[in-house]
Structures are given as C-alpha cells and as structure tokens.
C-alpha cells in the first residue's frame, strides 16, 4: 500500500479567501464559480418547482379553475425553460464540472478562468429576464419548444424576451463547453493520460462536444424566429410561404443532444459515486469511454424522432427509428457496467448511494419507454400525450436530478468539510423517490389512454389518476424541506468530515476539505488509477491494468 501523498493536509494554513461575499463577486476561482452555478441553479429549481406545483394544482380537477388558460400556458412554458436551461444544464455541467474537472485533470483552475466567470454571470440576468417577462407583459406561451406558428401568433413581447433569454443561456453554455474541452484536452497534469482520467471527465468532454456543435444551431434558429415575429419574415410561417417543419428540424438538432447534455454529465457523476461507496473499481472503464463517445455521435443524428407526426417521409422515419434504437446499446452497456461495479462490492448504503441506485432504477425505466417511443407506430399513438411527459421526466428528473442530489450528498464534505445528516438525507431520498414515482408513473397510463399534454382541461375519467400524480408532486415539494434544512444546518453544525471521509481515490479528495485556492498546497498528485479500490497492493500491477482485470482480481472466485 504505497501511497506517497505530496499535498499536506493541515488545517492551520488556509489559502481560501474568506467571507461569503466572494460568491457574489466576479471570482475566477473554479470552485467559487462551481458553487455559484449550484446555488443559482437551485434557486431556479425552487422557482421551477413552484411553477410545477401550479400546474399540478390546476390538474387536480378536469376543468380550468385554478389558473386562467393563458396563465397556464405561461406557467408550463416557464416551468420547462427554467428547469432545463437554468437548473439542470447549468448545475450538472457548470456546477459540478467547474468544481471537479480541474481537480481531475490535476490543474489549478480551468483553462480560461475569466471566460468561465463570464459564462456564469450570463445566467442570473438571463433567468431574471425570463421570469420578469411574466410581470412585464405576459410570458411566452408556446412551451419550451416555441414551435411556430404557435410562437408567432401568441403575444410577441413575452416570446421575444424568451428568445433573448435562451440566447444568453446558450452563449453561456457554449463558453462553458469551450472551457471544458480546452481544460480536459490541454490542461492535464504532465504524465496523466486520457485513459486514466476519472469518468466524469469523459462525460464532460462528450457533453461539451455536443454543446459546441449543437447549441449554435439553436441560436441561429431562434434569431430567424425572432425575425419572423418582429420583421414579419416568413421563414417558419406557412401563411407567408415558409416552412414550420424546418424550425422543428433545427430546434431538435439542438434539443435532442440537449437531452444528452443533461444526462451524460449525470452518467459521469454516478460513475464517480458508485465505485467509492461499493469499494470496487469502476467496471469496464474502456467500454464506458466508448459508450459515451458513441452516445455523442448517435445523439447528433436522431433528432427527427421527435417529429414522427410532422409529415416526415418514410425513409426518414426508418432512419431515425433505427438510429434511436441504437442508442440503447451504449446506454445499456453503461447500465450493466454500473450494476457490475456494485456487484459483490462492500456497499455503503448512505444517501449518496441511495440516490445513485434510485437513478439507475428510474433511468432504466425512462430508457425503456424511450426505446418504445422511438418506434413509429407507438410514437404516433402517444405523441404529445402525458406518456411523453412521463418518459422525459423519468430521464431528466429520475435520471439527472437524482444524480444531482446524490452528488450533493457525496461532495458536500469536500466543499464544506462537514458531512450532511444521514437520517435527514434518507428521509429526503424516501420522499423524493416515492413522490417522484407517484407523480410520473401514472402519467404513462394517462398518455396511453389519450390525455394530451399542455392542456389545462381533461376528460373527467382521468381525474383520480391526475390527483394521484398531484399527490406525488406534493411529496416531491415536501422532500425539498428536509434537504434545505440539512444543507443549511450541516454547514454549521454537521459532523466534521476530515479531508477524505469516503476514503476515495479520485484526485479531488487528495487535498484538504475544503480545498485551498489553487487546489493543492504542494504539487498536484498524479493519479494513474482513480478506481483502485479493494485490492491488496501486491496483487496489483496497476500500470496498464484495465477495469475488468482489476475487477477479476478483486473477486476471489474470478481470480485467474
């Protein structure tokens, strides 16, 4: 067991600038920026959650009684936009990416720290702009997809503000993506090879490639849409000779990869959490890397599966059905790799692990309904129904948000030096898991039976199931309370964690908690094998060993 740790881990000398005001400053420290993303994103999560609460309250009864119909449209548009562009994308990319990636590549900061700060500070004004549109005139009413001709015919002011806001957020996302690509490819500590990086680096590399390739297309499309609204051009307006389906193609060229922009980083984060708490190496490192890159490539060529009811020609349906079904292969590989990582491990079933396992369960369900939706006959039946709503909430909430919570429980001691309270955490998990499944599982049934999405009124036969779903939403809202109490109280009174409470081997734990400015007081450690758990040192010839070899070594029955 030869560990030669260079970084000194004494608490006496702190290089960290003091005071909470730095979190409101134009700081270029990647850790400060990461937390800025996280906290800002969480505030928007609460706002988006309140909007979801309004939606579920309206849907308690089959008639439109809680909100005026226009307001319902504004609320559902804001809910989708806030949750995607202001909570999930910034937090799972910008938040954890900024905090962790420099540690993982052995750098002291991101490649472009100032660009990094600019990328973050685009988000609060864009978010305020978006929300303020509700108070200025009326917010956009055309859903987060802003399909024309609907987005051209609904009130223009709110739609234009929506476009401006999404353009700012897209810019932020692109700047972030450029920064991650440069940091991962160019800023690695000398001696650290690509295939030795923790999996989250690969996930962020793949995500950032998607961001850089697809976000600009959305930006250009929204500029054209704003021309249609302001200058009365006819790009997407059929009554002026334009083509609304072209908008859908361009929109989904971004927004399908956006699904992977939201979920690939979650794959990466969960791949960091599972090995630590299972005390086993990450299974199938190489296949994980190729799966991520496979998802990146496939993710760019499946967008039209959102458009099977838009008059797509048969050859296009065939191509996009096959390509979409193919995505199940790399995703399935990752799923089995996670199971194999836990298999036979000494699993510590703490809150981080519970949320990770919850992620696997939810995600596999969302993935299966995704494969079902890729099939044209089925898709045409359930298109624009609550089945789709249920499906994508299983991916973005059951998948990504569960991982965000798992990550907060896992890395909170890193950030604060204190552990989160476990009983409160387990209560949080239980309420979230039950509430989430109660809220979204019934929606599949609603969709199969023909309840359309985005409409405030529905057939009375769906009342009971909708009320069940709303009850689930209430539990999800309540689940936030123990979490908030936990996070705030533990920051001051939580059990002291020490530098490495999980005995983890990834580089961010090989420094003090919280880490000093510039991450290490000495030089950065060179971690060749970030997942070498559970081995006797004499068994390991770590140079060149792959995950599967390490796994066989760790298991007495499989030892060659």
């Amino acid at each position: 067991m030869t560990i030669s740790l260079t970084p000194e881990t004494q608490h006496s000398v702190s290089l960290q600038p003091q005071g909470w005001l730095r979190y409101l400053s134009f700081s270029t420290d990647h850790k400060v920026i990461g937390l800025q993303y996280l906290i800002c994103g969480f505030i928007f999560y609460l706002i988006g959650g309140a909007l979801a609460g309004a939606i579920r309250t309206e849907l308690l009864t089959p008639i439109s009684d809680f909100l005026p119909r226009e307001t319902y449209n504004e609320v559902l548009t804001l809910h989708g936009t806030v949750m995607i562009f202001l909570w999930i994308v910034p937090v799972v990319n910008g938040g954890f990416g900024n905090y962790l990636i420099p540690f993982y590549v052995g750098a002291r900061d991101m490649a472009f720290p100032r660009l990094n700060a600019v990328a973050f500070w685009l988000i609060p004004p864009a978010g305020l702009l978006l929300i303020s549109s509700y108070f200025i005139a009326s917010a956009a009413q055309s859903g987060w997809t802003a399909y024309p001709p609907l987005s051209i015919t609904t009130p223009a002011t709110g739609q234009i503000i929506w476009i401006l806001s999404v353009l700012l957020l897209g810019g932020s996302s692109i700047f972030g993506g450029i920064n991650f690509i440069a940091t991962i490819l160019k800023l690695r500590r000398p001696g650290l090879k690509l295939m030795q990086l923790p999996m989250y680096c690969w996930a962020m590399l793949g995500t950032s490639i998607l961001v850089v390739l697809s976000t600009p297309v959305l930006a250009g499309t929204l500029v054209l849409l704003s021309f249609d609204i302001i200058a009365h051009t006819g790009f997407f307006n059929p009554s002026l000779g334009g083509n609304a389906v072209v908008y859908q193609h361009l929109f989904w060229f971004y927004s399908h990869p956006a699904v992977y922009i939201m979920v690939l980083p979650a794959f990466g984060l969960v791949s960091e959490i599972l090995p630590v708490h299972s005390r086993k190496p990450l299974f199938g490192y190489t296949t994980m890397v190729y799966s991520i890159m496979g998802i990146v490539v496939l993710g760019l060529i499946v967008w039209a599966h959102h458009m099977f009811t838009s008059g797509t020609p048969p050859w296009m349906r065939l191509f996009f059905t096959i390509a979409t079904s193919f995505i199940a292969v790399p995703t399935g590989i990752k799923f089995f790799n996670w199971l194999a990582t836990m298999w036979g491990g000494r699993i510590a079933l703490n809150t981080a692990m519970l949320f990770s396992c919850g992620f696997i369960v939810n995600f596999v369900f969302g993935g299966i309904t995704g494969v079902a939706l890729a099939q044209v006959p089925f898709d045409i039946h359930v298109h624009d129904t609550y089945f789709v709503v249920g499906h994508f909430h299983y991916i973005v909430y059951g998948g990504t948000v569960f991982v965000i919570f798992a990550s907060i429980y896992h890395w909170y001691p890193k950030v604060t030096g204190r552990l989160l309270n476990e009983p409160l955490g387990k209560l949080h998990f239980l309420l979230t898991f039950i509430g989430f499944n109660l809220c979204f599982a019934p929606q599949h049934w609603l969709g199969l039976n023909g309840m359309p999405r985005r409409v405030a009124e529905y057939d009375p036969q769906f009342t009971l199931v909708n009320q069940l779903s709303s009850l689930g939403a209430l539990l999800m809202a309540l689940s936030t309370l123990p979490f908030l109490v936990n996070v705030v109280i533990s920051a001051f009174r939580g059990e002291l964690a020490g530098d490495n409470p999980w005995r983890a081997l990834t580089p961010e734990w090989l420094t003090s908690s919280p880490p000093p400015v510039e991450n290490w007081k000495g030089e950065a450690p060179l971690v060749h094998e970030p997942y070498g758990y559970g081995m006797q040192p004499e068994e390991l010839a770590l140079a060149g060993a792959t995950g599967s070899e390490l796994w066989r070594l760790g298991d007495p029955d499989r030892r060659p």
Partner: protein
Amino acid sequence: MTTLTSSSTSVSEQQHEAHADHRMFGLATFLVADGMTFAGFFAAYLTFRAVNPLPSGSSYELELVLPTINTLLLLVSSFTFHRAGSALKRDNRPLARRWLLVTAALGFAFLAGQMVEYFSLPFGLTDNLFASTFYAITGFHGLHVTLGGLMILIVWWQCRSGGRVSSQNLFPLEAAELYWHFVDGIWVVLYGILYLL
C-alpha cells in the same frame, strides 16, 4: 492499493508560471461553434429550396459579377493578412501594419460591394422565402466581416511601435488572422450554395 506518485520535477513551479497558452485552441473551438450556426442556416436554406416553391415571378437566380469580385477581394485579403503575419514574425512592424491596412481596406471594400448589391437587388427582406434567407445569411456573414474589419484595425493600432503586439506577442494578430480566414472560408461556401447552386 493505488499508485499515487509525484514526479520529481517541480510541477507546481511550472504551473505557477504562465501555463501554456491555449487561447488559440479556445478560439478554434469557438469558430467550430460559429461555423455550426452557418451550417444551420445553410441547411435551412437548402431545405427551403428543395421543398418550398417560390411564388410566381420570383426565382433563385442572382446577378454573379459583383459577388464574384467580392469573393476575389476576400480571397486576396486572406493572402494579405498572411503577409502581415509573416512581416511581424520578422519584426518588421511597419510592413506588417501596411499589410493589415490593405487587408482591412479589402474587407471594407467587400462590405461596400455587398451594400451596392443589396440596393440593386429586385427584392426586399420580406418579399419571399428566398429573399429572407438570402438577407439573413449574407447579413450574418456581413456582420462577421464587419467585426473582423474592426479587429484588424485594432491589431493595426496595437502594432504601432511601443504597442502590445510584436514578434514577442503574436496572439492578437494570429487570433484575428484565424478568424479572418474562417470568415473567408464561410464566404466561399456561402458563395457556392447561394450564388452558384
């Protein structure tokens, strides 16, 4: 358990010095993103053209003489920019500044040519789908040329004796040059798709 070694060379000292300059890499990545915006526009244009018939009396035909001259102006300007870079590398600042000025002049001549073309065209922004797409794409490219021209003038100013751009600090000039070549390259594609096709 695991191998955590620290190399004997002092990495921390290396890292506390200015680390290698990755700004050109960052710019190149940004230009890929920028290029994707154009790719989206081109894809939209080609789809419109394939499936949306224009109203009678309008067509996709465009006058070719002026745009061809404009294309040549931009291609020559890429060459003159390269000459400016070579001159600066040889520490010949006055020559570099002269070539930069020539490049900027070619860029602004291109913009003037495009203005002339805009005013001589028989259609306006909202006349038909082709007109809208044409103005959107050439206008977006013109915006890039305008920004590039301003960048060149800024670098020209920074190249004066005592300015911050020199053979020791080539980045501003090289960045502007990469951007300029990119804008030229986009124009060549644009010319092929919008004018020749």
